[in-house]
């Protein structure tokens, strides 16, 4: 199971989800509270000086413990390889 989080509004996420044909949920963190709690905030990094999230991926095991993490974009195969280790 995968979820993707950004500071986008639900409308923006819906647009992205539709255009890119995404099958996993896009979660809207408009106030960037979750982004802050993961310490990933890029203040005024977005359009119109919006606060946005940095790019990061966390693979959690069934207890919610981080088993793998990565900052920046990466290839999807990395996720698959790491997820197989769980």
């Amino acid at each position, binding site marked *: *199971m*995968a*979820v*993707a*989080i*950004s*500071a*986008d509004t*639900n409308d*923006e*996420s*819906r*647009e*992205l*989800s539709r255009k890119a044909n995404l099958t996993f*949920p*896009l*979660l*809207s*963190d408009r106030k960037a509270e*979750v*982004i802050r*709690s*993961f*310490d*990933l*905030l*890029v203040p005024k*990094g*977005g*359009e119109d000086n*919006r606060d*946005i*999230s*940095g*790019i*990061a*991926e*966390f*693979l*959690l*095991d*069934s*207890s*919610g*413990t*981080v*088993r*793998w*993490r*990565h*900052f*920046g974009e*990466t290839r999807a195969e990395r*996720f698959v390889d790491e*997820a197989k280790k*769980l």
Partner: protein
Amino acid sequence: MAAKLWNWRLWAGLGLSVGALAGYVFVVNETRAVFWPALLLFVAAAVLLVSGVQRRSREPELYRGKIAGRVLTTLSVVMLGLFGFVAYQVSRVFPDAKNAPQIGQRAPEFSLVDTNGKNFTLTQLLSNPITNSSGVARATKGVLVVFYRGYW
């Protein structure tokens, strides 16, 4: 006249610079803290290069490295410049993320709504069984949480 000695410090200086830049680029996406070790390697490279150049100018009869000294020092400065450029770009695009959950730590709980208005919490994601393509439900092994900059 006897062959002059190889001025290894110059080459080691360049080697360290290349290693520092390559190491930084390779590891920075795993941890941002690699900045300081990389900078330390550049300092060590500078020490080696300076001492290599000084050795050559003190004892030009004994050591090689007149041209190599200039070339290798220039190359090392280029490596340092690239390092500065990459580090600047990284700091602009990625947050410091010093307090991001580390490997082995629990991820903070969250509760967010998706594009269909459905609420997702981390606890639910971890405890709800998932159903595979043949309709068999089983306990989830884990969750991948991706943060992205957004759609613009």
